[in-house]
């Protein structure tokens, strides 16, 4: 009987017909992102000329082969087909080297990398929101929110939890379409038997109270909390709950939404970490007070999203029926939105160089005056890099973060961002806000009331701090030597650490 020898595999031929194509079908144009997850390139399909994004699946740190997170992501993306969810077009493999380390011919076609091919998207929501001089209009915010909810509703109907909803994972193309991306933490769930799931998901600032209290059985409501945070952030012009660590995050939530008790959240006192975290004295819900400058319908919807008890939190479907989306001004047609200069293409090397010089200069300056770290920093920075995210110590204080490799210049997200730092946005890039210095966010007073003029209602766009000249739109703040997150440099630092970011490589340690 003919049979291959023990352990022999057919690795000298490329995948058979119907198998994966080779990455050589694409021409790499430019690297547009780099994160803990891997590199992202803009590329052109040679045959069709179509522009795509190639996301390389990082394998070099893997001790157990192809990362389980990537497998999960591929499985999920292959099932999802929706205009508001990023489309995984195909997966291609690179044949790898022709010669091995000793220079001997190596015909193994499977030693190279693996790339996921996605639609090319020009921006992400955070990057767009952070553009100096850019202010979203109300119809535009409604349009993005509606698309976000539509995409998320689709995921939830298909029993997928995204588990990392945040601005930098919401990609936007130049036709105004918003798509959910980065399903690296996503998971299928089933209604009937919810298994034990890890609560170490969702970037801290967008993480719902039930996860912070240790819930291991949860559902779509966790994503809706994140949506609420993004919604408020779009209207409020800055992240609303920028906690430094889990404890502080919960405190911020309680200060805003009140402290939970058995009346408003039946079962809360039995949550695993409730006793560690319950506030010393009861706090009143103050959402209406904090966001009193929002319009009535927006506030009404936000109130339903930022509900502590997940079982009472509004679903994506119901949120789409909210008055907010059906009253004037109506959400605009995505096609009618202005197009913005792409975040990737027009950045010259010179700009990057300049920016590096600025960083160096800033670093030197900071080393001389370390105590100024707080008072000098710009008020609001999103995504970008470590050195661009100085003012609140980056990332939750999560043990997993210790495993995070120090990546000096990551994009703001794991999918593909421009991979370059963004300048400090103006405090008032969004529709008017009159509550910048109020209440719960006073811990940031050092930034918001120090260097910047207070923002009045309807105040015109006011430039932020002087950016280093020459850096243009991409100037950076001082480097980040903040306390609290020694690995602030990685991918999503500016926005709080992705809790599993550093742990993606370690597949066998956590609950699924």
């Amino acid at each position: 009987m003919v049979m291959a020898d023990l352990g022999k595999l057919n690795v000298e031929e490329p995948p058979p017909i119907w198998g994966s194509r080779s990455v050589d079908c694409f021409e790499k144009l430019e690297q547009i992102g780099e994160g803990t997850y891997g590199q992202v390139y803009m590329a052109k399909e040679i045959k069709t000329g179509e522009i795509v994004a190639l996301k390389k699946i990082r394998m070099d740190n893997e001790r157990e082969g192809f990362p389980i997170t990537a497998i999960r992501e591929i499985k999920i993306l292959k099932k999802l087909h929706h205009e508001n969810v990023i489309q995984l077009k195909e997966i291609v493999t690179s044949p790898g080297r022709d010669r091995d380390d000793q220079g001997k011919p190596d015909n193994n076609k499977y030693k190279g990398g693996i790339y996921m091919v996605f639609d090319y998207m020009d921006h992400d929501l955070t990057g767009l929101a952070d553009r100096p001089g850019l202010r979203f209009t109300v119809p535009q915010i409604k349009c993005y929110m509606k698309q976000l909810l539509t995409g998320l509703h689709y995921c939830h109907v298909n029993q997928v939890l995204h588990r990392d909803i945040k601005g930098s994972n919401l990609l936007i193309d130049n036709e105004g379409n918003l798509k959910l991306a980065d399903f690296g933490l996503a998971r299928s769930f089933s209604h009937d038997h919810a298994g034990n799931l890890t609560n170490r998901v969702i970037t801290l600032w967008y993480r719902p109270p039930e996860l912070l209290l240790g819930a291991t059985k949860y559902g779509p409501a966790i994503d809706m909390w994140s949506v609420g945070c993004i919604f408020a952030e779009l209207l409020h012009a800055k992240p609303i709950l920028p906690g430094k660590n889990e404890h502080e995050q919960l405190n911020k939530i309680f200060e805003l939404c009140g402290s939970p008790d058995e009346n408003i959240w039946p079962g809360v006192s039995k949550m695993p970490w409730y006793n560690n975290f319950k506030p010393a004295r009861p706090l009143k819900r103050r959402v209406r007070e904090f966001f009193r400058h929002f319009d009535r319908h927006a506030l009404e919807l936000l109130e339903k999203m930022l509900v502590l008890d997940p079982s009472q939190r509004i679903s994506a479907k119901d949120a789409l029926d909210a008055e907010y989306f059906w009253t004037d001004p109506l959400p605009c047609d995505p096609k009618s939105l202005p197009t913005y200069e792409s975040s990737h293409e027009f950045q010259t090397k010179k700009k990057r160089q300049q920016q590096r010089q600025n960083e160096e200069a800033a670093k030197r300056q900071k080393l001389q005056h370390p105590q100024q770290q707080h008072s000098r920093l710009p008020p609001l920075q999103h995504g970008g890099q470590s050195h661009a995210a100085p003012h609140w110590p980056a990332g939750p204080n999560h043990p997993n973060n210790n495993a995070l490799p120090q990546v000096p210049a990551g994009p703001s997200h794991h999918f593909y961002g421009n991979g370059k730092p963004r300048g400090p946005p103006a405090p008032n890039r969004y529709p008017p806000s009159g509550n910048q210095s109020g209440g719960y966010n006073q811990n940031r007073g050092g930034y918001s009331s120090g260097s910047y003029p207070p923002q009045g209602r309807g105040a015109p766009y006011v430039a932020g701090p002087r950016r280093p000249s020459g850096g243009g739109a991409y100037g950076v703040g001082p480097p980040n030597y903040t306390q609290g997150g020694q690995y602030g440099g990685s991918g999503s630092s500016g926005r709080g650490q992705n809790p599993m970011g550093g742990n993606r490589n370690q597949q066998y340690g956590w609950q699924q």
Partner: protein
Amino acid sequence: MAEPRWYYTREEIEKNSPSRLDGMNFKDETIHRWCYTSFLQDLGHRLNHPQKSIATAIVLCQRFFTRQSIAKNDPRMVATICMFLAGKVEGSPRPAGDVLFFSHRLLFNKDPLIDAKFERLKATVFTGEKLVMATLGFDLDIEHPYKLVMDWVKRCVKAEDFRRVGQAALNFVNNMLRTSLCLQFGPSQLGAGAIYLGLSLCKIKYLPCDGDKAWWVEFGISKRQLKEICDQTLDLYVQDFVVPAGARGFTSRHLLCYTAASCTQRLYCLCQLLDHTLQFQLLQLESKNQ
């Protein structure tokens, strides 16, 4: 991306597989199929994998050999890789070293030395994993009939029969994995076949609840397909290489009985040969009838 095609006709599987092109005849490939599927079932058990992961490993492995030849790929290695990969796919990952260790133990009846050779094998698993995924076009989401079958049985079978029908049907789902049926039919069609066999084995005549529409219509299957699935499943039990060594003694007697066309008789014979659970249930059934 071109739509992958994962289902073949029986003729395609018998005549045109890559192994056939490399000169392996159908019978040999069938023996291989039986070997690697049984091996995966055992390996999965040793690794404490849930049945779903084992089933995924088996389907991945079977699909792999519709695109690659056994003459060029050692099925033992491919199966080991598929088990490793299926664990990750189904969220019950086991380290490659463990999978290899148990694989070695099962294949060679002794524990491997953890030496440089073992490390090389591990490296082969990691490269091979990419080979398997690329060959399969990264189609890793495999559906199985288990849930479908249980839901239907729960819904449609009387409470007193529920357990044994359910168990019998699930056993048939497991045994179907050893045939090439998962390359010919989708999970819901296989589910219908397993239910049909389960019901017949338990001697339950299922009456359609929905007017005069047959119950299997909701599984998207025709009567002809249903018969085809049942026949191929039952064929599994008469192929002589399938018969476990201990059962060989009474093979011929039962094979004689098997040639009789009656489905119940064939089922009876296969129970004797293979499945203790089913056997037990059948005996119970008979004692009730007497």
